[in-house]
């Protein structure tokens, strides 16, 4: 096995360039090195101006999402050896504006996320004296899958609908809304429905399904969206046939 591999790293320096260019570097390729290790090697030993986000190195923080050989990946969980003999092309996540090199602007996602109130909403808090809001393991299982989302944006990068129509609220936002909708302690589903039922909400999704395939945490955003379509359709029918409520 070769002990080095070529990394083709996308560069975008807005003060110099108006398009992405690529730098090539030979980096060590021991079997336990991930793409992020290769980038860190370049930054530490070759070119300190290379810019990218990273933090935890263990697939928890969701910072190091990039496009690796055309696929959205967490670079901390993508082994260089899997791409031997190379080269490995590293680009910024697709469908987001690029700020510099491998860094993308995710403000659009952050704004949309806040709209669906991704926290437990209570109409009235019960007194502290009554203790915690208890939950059974079955109730936890209802939303646990969706709670695994780490906001890494790989699903947005994989979604052609978001690429073509940036108004689409997007997979992770809907999955995170569902995380709270399915939480037995939450009472905010009606508030979220107002946002999710918009044209750019769930109905923007045409079920390409790539969001689920690229999700590193097996959240299944496509499933969350389809389940919510069913919920919204039933709710709409109920309000049509039972206008005064069930």
């Amino acid at each position, binding site marked *: 096995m070769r002990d080095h591999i070529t990394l083709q790293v996308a560069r*975008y320096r*807005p*003060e110099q360039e*108006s*398009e*992405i260019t690529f730098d090539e570097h030979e980096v060590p390729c021991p079997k336990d090195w991930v793409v992020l290790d290769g980038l860190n090697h370049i930054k530490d030993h070759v070119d300190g101006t290379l810019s990218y986000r990273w933090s935890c190195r263990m697939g928890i923080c969701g910072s190091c999402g990039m496009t690796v050989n*055309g696929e959205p990946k967490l670079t901390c969980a993508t082994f260089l050896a899997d791409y031997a003999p190379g080269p490995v092309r590293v680009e910024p996540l*697709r*469908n987001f*504006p*690029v*700020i*510099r090199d491998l860094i993308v*602007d995710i403000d659009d996602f952050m704004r949309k996320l806040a709209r669906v109130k991704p926290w437990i909403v209570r109409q009235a808090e019960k007194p502290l004296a009554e203790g915690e809001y208890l939950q059974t393991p*079955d109730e936890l*299982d209802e939303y646990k899958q969706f709670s695994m989302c780490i906001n890494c944006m790989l699903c947005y990068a994989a979604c*052609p609908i978001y*690429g*073509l129509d940036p108004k689409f609220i997007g997979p992770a936002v809907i999955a995170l809304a569902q995380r709270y909708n399915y939480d037995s302690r939450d009472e905010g589903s009606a508030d979220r429905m107002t946002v999710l039922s918009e044209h750019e909400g769930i109905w923007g999704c*045409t*079920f*390409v*399904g*790539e969001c*689920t*395939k690229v999700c590193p945490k097996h959240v*299944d955003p*496509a*499933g969350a969206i*389809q*389940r919510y*379509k*069913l919920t919204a359709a039933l709710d709409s029918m109920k309000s049509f046939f039972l206008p005064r409520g069930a």
Partner: protein
Amino acid sequence: MAGSHVYTDYHPRWLRRQVSTYWWLEKRDYFAFILREATCLFVGWFVAYLLLMVKAVVGGVGSYQPFLDWSATPWVLTLNVVSFLFMIYHAITFFVAAPQAMVVHVGRRRVPGNLVLAGHYVAWAAVSVIVSWLLLGA
């Protein structure tokens, strides 16, 4: 944050990349998706054909026999065979999607997705057997 911004210190110029017109050729899964979207026209054709057949049946032998003759013409036959193949494609992709959209509970236990998928195929087979029996056996 418009693309026309000129770079100045502390105010970077974002690079906005256009999605290629041929994005659906970049991945097999994207192509499968576009194929599913585009071939819904054939599903529409099947519905129209079914309605025409019902109309012909209601009209009695006088209108049903010409309908059969028209259905036997090469272009209608070819169209129907192609439509049938795409109907199968749509049925399969629909079934694959079903476990993601339908979460079924029996009591407090969640039914595994594979069982939901299998249930769809069993129902499909059952309906096919009944329809075959009606057409061939009756």
